[in-house]
């Protein structure tokens, strides 16, 4: 999450974009992959087509899928636009939107399936490996 926001801030005033890949079927975002916005635009983002092919081949070879697909809006709220919805074509992905319109971080997540947007709760965990094993100061196998 911090890396996504940092990428969005760094590329502002252009839109930033990328994915967080994870093992297929796990729904665990593990590998942060910032992508170049080939459109280099404050109002549009697009993965370069060559980068897109390399990304999917790389994920395939690791049995990964794009668990999170993120991009930033630079002047509007972190809510999917009509263009975002018409392009959205990973029904299993969490579409994360970040807005860099103000100092305050806006970080929201959605499912977009067949043109229908459903916002979902964002729960921040330290790392997925340790997220559900209890407090850090208590040994798990004690």
């Amino acid at each position, binding site marked *: 999450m911090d890396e996504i926001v940092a990428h969005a801030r760094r590329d502002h005033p252009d839109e930033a974009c990328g994915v967080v890949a994870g093992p297929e079927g796990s729904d665990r975002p593990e590998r942060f992959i910032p992508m170049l916005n080939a*459109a280099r635009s404050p109002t549009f983002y697009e993965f370069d087509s060559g980068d897109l092919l390399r990304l999917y081949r790389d994920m395939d070879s690791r049995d990964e899928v794009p668990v999170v697909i993120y991009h930033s809006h630079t002047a509007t709220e972190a809510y999917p636009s009509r263009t975002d919805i018409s392009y959205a074509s*990973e029904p299993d992905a969490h579409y994360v939107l970040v807005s860099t319109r103000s100092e305050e971080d806006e970080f929201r997540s959605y499912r977009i399936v067949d043109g229908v947007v459903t916002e979902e709760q964002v729960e921040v965990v330290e790392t997925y490996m340790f997220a559900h094993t209890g407090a850090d100061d208590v040994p798990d196998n004690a």
Partner: protein
Amino acid sequence: MATVSIPTILRTHTGGEKAVEASGGTVAAVIDDLESRHSGIKGRLITDGSLHRFVNIYVDDEDVRFAGGLEAPVKDTSTVTILPAVAGGMR
């Protein structure tokens, strides 16, 4: 036969298969052959005779938009990869 890599969103047409085989000397012919066995897939790729703007098709490493479009040649040993574009914008 060429191997065609199918993205998640189109696997409903291929019974969940990630890759299928298809024959044809061009991308257009491969898509017609796909349609004959996986009905409905052509309409997800082509509108009014041209490639849908939300879809990228590659023959091996080449995006067909830069290699002859739907007439781009396909060999028996080729891998044709279909990927939805990842794009959007604030409007």
